[in-house]
């Protein structure tokens, strides 16, 4: 076995719409990209169901992972020769950046909720088990895969290294904000990354930003704020996500009840038995899941058939705001009425909250668990960003939570149970769906 890393005879480049080019000079990185586990990421969309709202959002975890690698490579170029940076960590950082999402499955957010699984657990498993990725990593030493997994899991002792891949201004976020903005076609999400990278400095605990780069970081925080409301938290995408989760919930329930599927969910078996081998997990991708959804539009079970038809044909649920008044006064009544008119509330009356999302805002600290962004001041002291920037301070304290109630509006206009349906509509109309400006 060849040990260590060799430089490629010639640099390889990937054309990339966000970073123009992605440069690969290390054989280790080139070979990791060629593994079947990494290639699988081509078949998993970065933004899950967002393509049903923004039709351009078809980009994959593969594009994003390459982008994170490229940003990490550029950060390292800036850090080289500076205090607190050791070039011995270079390949570890690049490998961790490239592989940080390797454990993601198809529509992983919904899968994780319904089947109580965790893509970060699968990431570690892929890196430390007998896989092609692991074989390539082990060329750098027997303990190298474990180190890569530790960096991704944020348990690696060098906190600077961890912060580059996982902090409030890291390579991961800087790539996905720009990439998601590009592919969704929105004009938010853009910021001057070149400027941020130029003013990024290593310290013992984390990467910090020179004071002169504060305005570029303000732009980054603003774009994160805008993308949260305009793209990640879009109510239509959330509607699609709700239906997807309900499909999985229904399949799980039917399987437990011994329902006789026309198209048996073979690829999901390990999830049902809570015993999914890695080899089976790696076979799951979005094309496999969509195949089942397509088949299940012809199932006997009316709920599974309907939910899959909705997902395939984008017949999504409508929504209203769900607030305290709703919870205290109308929620139970609404569930009773749904049962009376024959609509199963477990599948067709669904609350979705902001805590269901894998995205967040900037958090400035104050007994928080997340390290805030620090500015390196002219006197060499560190200051938390929101204490220097009025713009960041203004949006750090803004409302970050939101609840919506999703339901099949068109079913309330069909014949039968007219009185009860009118009662349902009266309750729902008292809580109209408020959209954030611009949504």
């Amino acid at each position, binding site marked *: 076995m060849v040990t260590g890393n060799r430089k490629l005879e010639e640099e390889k480049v990937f054309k990339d719409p966000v970073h123009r080019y992605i440069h690969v000079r290390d054989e280790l990185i080139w070979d990791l990209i060629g593994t079947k586990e990494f290639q699988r990421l081509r078949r998993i969309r970065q933004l899950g169901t967002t393509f049903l709202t923004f039709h351009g959002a078809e980009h994959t975890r593969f594009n994003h992972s390459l982008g994170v690698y490229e940003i990490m490579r550029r950060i390292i170029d800036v850090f080289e020769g500076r205090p607190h940076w050791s070039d011995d960590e270079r390949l570890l950082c690049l490998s961790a950046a490239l592989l940080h999402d390797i454990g993601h499955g198809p529509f992983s957010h919904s899968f*994780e909720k319904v089947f*109580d699984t*965790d893509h*970060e657990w699968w990431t570690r498993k892929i890196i430390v088990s007998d896989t092609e990725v692991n074989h390539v990593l082990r060329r750098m030493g027997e303990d190298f895969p474990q180190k890569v997994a530790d960096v991704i*899991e*944020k*348990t690696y*002792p060098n906190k600077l290294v961890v912060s580059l891949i996982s902090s409030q201004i890291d390579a991961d976020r800087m790539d996905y904000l720009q990439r998601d903005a590009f592919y969704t076609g929105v004009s938010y999400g853009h910021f001057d990354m070149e400027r941020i990278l130029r003013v990024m400095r290593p310290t013992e605990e984390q990467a910090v930003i020179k004071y002169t780069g504060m305005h570029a970081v303000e732009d980054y925080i603003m774009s994160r704020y805008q993308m949260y409301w305009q793209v990640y938290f879009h109510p239509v995408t959330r509607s699609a996500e709700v239906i997807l989760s309900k499909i999985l919930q229904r399949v799980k329930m039917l399987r437990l009840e011994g329902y006789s599927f026309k198209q048996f969910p073979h690829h999901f078996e390990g999830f049902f038995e809570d015993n999914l081998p890695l080899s089976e997990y790696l076979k799951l991708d979005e094309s496999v899941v969509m195949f089942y959804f397509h088949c299940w539009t012809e199932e006997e079970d009316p709920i599974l058939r309907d939910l899959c038809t909705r997902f395939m044909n984008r017949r999504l649920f409508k929504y209203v705001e769900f*607030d*305290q008044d709703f*919870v*205290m006064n109308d*929620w*139970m009544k609404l569930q009773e009425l749904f049962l009376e008119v024959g609509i199963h509330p*477990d599948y067709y009356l*669904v*609350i*979705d*909250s*902001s*805590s*269901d*999302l894998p995205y*967040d805002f900037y958090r400035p600290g*104050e*007994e*928080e*668990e*997340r*390290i805030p962004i620090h500015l390196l001041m002219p006197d060499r002291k560190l200051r938390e960003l929101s204490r220097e920037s009025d713009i960041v301070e203004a949006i750090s304290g803004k*409302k*970050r*939570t939101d*609840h919506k109630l999703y339901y099949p509006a068109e079913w309330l206009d069909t014949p039968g149970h007219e009185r009860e349906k009118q009662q349902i509509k009266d309750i729902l109309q008292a809580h109209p769906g408020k959209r954030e400006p611009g949504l």
Partner: protein
Amino acid sequence: MVLPEHAKIIALLKDAGEIVGRKKLQKIVYIGKKMKLPLQEKYTFHVYGPYSEELTLRVEELCSLGFVTETKEKKAGYSQYRYKITKNGESFIEKFPLTWPREQASTIVHQLNGHSSKFLELVSTMLYFDELPKPEVKEKVFTLKKSQNYTEQDIQEAWEFIESLNHLS
């Protein structure tokens, strides 16, 4: 559906009476989850050990729904937050059909709430690495929690505490 998970956090806060400190709340939920209380918040490792962004948001949501109050208190050099359920929170969980092991949860939560957040940080960190052999867990604590200056005795106390919790779960 989301509401049951919110209701469990209200139930936990009710059992505790009140919880002082965000870090403490994070650790109580994490350790409770490890002790098999039916909590679903997803945790990853952060600066002070296991941390759940989902829990942070869920608590903010409970505050915005008026079921939980968050009081900010100034301490020397930092702010501390105090969490309590409101009357509306109480009547919500009375109405809500929740599967929650009240007796077991109450005992565990009381035990946890009686300790400092620094001790709970140690316990939760050790539980995070509970698949490793004990000497490696200790090494992880000394490496990752260097700034907390935990001693051998602290670690021994934490093992005994985990053992006692395991008997309750």
